[in-house]
């Protein structure tokens, strides 16, 4: 079916990302306006806006299957792009779209279901000879069963949500005594996030690298990979920085892992863009972890090193087109790094720091790509994730990409919330990171500090504090100090005074 108009069932930077490509392909787009973000930036990229801001329903519209179908039908959208998160990996939703003659821009409901259920995915991988970590046969009923299996495969083990992804519902257990608590937390988190409390257990691979392969498949059964992404820089199982390619792989290993990734995709007749995630241990053994049946946050690094627009491919494939290139046509050139600039407090263990973005300016150098859904005045709201922008930097090789990244990070200017910028400034200067010597445990184990400040920054901050004190306590024309009269002073007043300075 020819795609004429796409309903964007998402918000933020990914909504904008999809609409940019759609516009280039001369396909109309519909965005949904919500009460939470009625002035959001993504709305200005749509050809049409469906106003849902009067909706008082408890569930956000991007999770409301019936509502989204109704909006697509009402606006005459004959296709729907789910983006990532929300309903992107909901097989029922994909099926509902098909039932209503709306093209779902993504894989088949069957593929989503099979890969979404980690116990089924494990079985499929096993049948296809894909290397995997040892684990439970299926889901685990309670912590007693968990303890029994863990003692069989040996600690440490990891509890994972059967319907999981994105790090939620995941807990590492190092000894039997921790099992009860961790089982409870993982299962509770899984229920909350995925409406399915079932969990399973796997042998926990110590200090692995997280390597994933980008897959593209069409409806005719052609499946290829677009190389790997290195996503080991994570905290709480959530990715912070991604690269393509990975310096841990040589051509031989890339071929081997890529072949396995294609094989697992073939097992579910995969079409559209997808990602096969592996863990790579220090001996370069790799283990299938899961397949994500959506476009991913970190897709731009692959786009940069392959020159392929993944959203365009998703749209073409959904419209029934065959892939115009084969495995041998895919060439990886250069290096790309993506930093996820989130509204988080790195000095407080990466705790979310929602708030209004007062000032925002991003570098516009030729080696920088910025994907964002935030502009000055936008708010990072607690309802959604904490992403402000993705800073994607390229170079001819890894070294140049890191150097460019260092420069670009110093040009990013954000005021209003704390951000992950000081963390990235530290990372690009870290010797182990520069040498490619890092695993998924890097942030928690190998760093004793999560931020970078140059030699004089603390001193300058001290000068500013002293200046404030002087403004507040010492009279203009004397050097006398009025003791005991410490007053509270509003930063606003300070700013006003400083403007005259």
């Amino acid at each position, binding site marked *: 079916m020819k795609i004429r108009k796409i309903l964007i069932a998402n918000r933020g930077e990914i909504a904008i990302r999809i609409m940019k490509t759609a516009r280039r392909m001369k396909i109309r787009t519909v965005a949904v306006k919500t009460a939470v973000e009625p002035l959001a930036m993504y709305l200005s990229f749509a050809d049409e806006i469906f106003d849902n801001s009067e909706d008082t329903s408890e569930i956000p519209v991007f999770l409301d299957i019936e509502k989204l179908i109704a909006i697509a039908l009402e606006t005459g959208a004959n296709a729907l792009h789910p983006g990532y998160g929300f309903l992107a990996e909901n097989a029922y939703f994909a099926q509902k779209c098909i039932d209503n003659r709306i093209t779902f821009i993504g894989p088949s409901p069957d593929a989503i279901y099979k890969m979404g259920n980690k116990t089924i995915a494990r079985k499929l991988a096993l049948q296809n000879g894909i290397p995997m970590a040892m684990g439970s046969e299926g889901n685990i009923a309670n912590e007693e069963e968990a303890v029994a299996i863990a003692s069989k495969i040996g600690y440490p083990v990891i509890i994972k949500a059967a319907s999981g992804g994105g790090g939620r519902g995941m807990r590492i257990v190092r000894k039997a005594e921790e099992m009860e608590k961790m089982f409870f937390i993982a299962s509770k988190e899984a229920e909350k996030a995925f409406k399915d409390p079932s969990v399973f257990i796997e042998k926990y691979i110590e200090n692995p690298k997280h390597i994933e392969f980008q897959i593209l498949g069409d409806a005719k059964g052609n499946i290829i990979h677009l190389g790997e992404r290195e996503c080991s820089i994570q905290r709480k199982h959530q990715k912070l920085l991604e690269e393509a390619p990975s310096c841990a792989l040589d051509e031989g290993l890339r071929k081997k892992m890529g072949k396995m990734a294609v094989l697992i995709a073939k097992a579910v007749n995969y079409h559209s863009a997808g990602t096969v995630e592996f863990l790579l241990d220090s001996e370069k053994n790799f283990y299938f972890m899961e397949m994500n049946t959506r476009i991913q946050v970190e897709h731009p690094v692959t786009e940069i090193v392959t020159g392929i627009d993944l959203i365009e491919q998703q749209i073409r494939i959904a419209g029934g087109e065959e892939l115009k290139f084969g495995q041998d046509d895919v060439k990886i050139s250069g290096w790309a790094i993506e930093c996820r600039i989130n509204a988080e407090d790195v*000095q407080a263990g990466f705790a979310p*720091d929602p708030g209004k973005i007062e000032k925002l300016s991003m570098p516009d150098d030729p080696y920088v790509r910025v994907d964002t859904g935030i502009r000055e005045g936008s708010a990072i709201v*607690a309802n959604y994730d904490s992403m402000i922008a993705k800073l994607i930097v390229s170079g001819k090789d890894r070294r140049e990409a890191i150097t460019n990244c260092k420069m670009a990070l110093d040009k990013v*200017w954000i005021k209003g919330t704390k*951000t992950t910028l000081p963390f990235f400034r530290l990372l690009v200067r870290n010797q182990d990171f520069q040498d490619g010597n890092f695993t998924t445990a890097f942030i928690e184990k190998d760093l004793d500090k999560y931020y970078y400040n140059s030699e004089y920054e603390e001193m300058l901050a001290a000068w*500013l504090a002293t200046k404030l*004190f002087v403004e507040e306590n010492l009279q203009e024309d004397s*050097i006398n100090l009025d003791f005991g009269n410490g007053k509270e002073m509003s930063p606003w007043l*300070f700013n006003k005074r400083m403007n005259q*300075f």
Partner: protein
Amino acid sequence: MNDKLQIKKLYALSSENRKFSFSVPLNNKIRIGKREYIVQLKSDDKFGTYILWKNRKYPVEIVRSRQNKYEILFNDISYTFTVETPFSLQRMKVLNSKKGKVEQELVRAPMPGRLIDVLVREGSTIMRGEALVILEAMKMQNEIQSPVNGKIIKVHAKTNTNVMKDDVLVEIKVE
């Protein structure tokens, strides 16, 4: 004029006990080695408030100021200082030598959210890094861990209640 005193120097003490001294009247020149550099505090529409130092702009924000205590956000990193005069610094030293170190630790909510689980009881002994409560915020369940070894003296946190940022969750006697 008894409570007015001549001040020639001010000290900014960081929360990690680093001391930065500045002469009064405070000027905008900072000496490093043999050279003096000019530090300027500026503000405009494009950048907001910033410090200009060696031709580079650094974003600054005053997060909090209370009496002589200031929390400054400088280039996305927060610093807390108390500004002391030579006299108050002297007084502090005397007080500190009498008092010894801080004995009680208040664990506060790092962000607003909902308490999913409280894992400690009053009276229980706790090791540094051990989980105290599970706080759900922005779709993540966050383990709030003990910053110290000690004994729980009071638990303010209640399961299935909402907390604001900086609400005290647990009081720990440092051991």
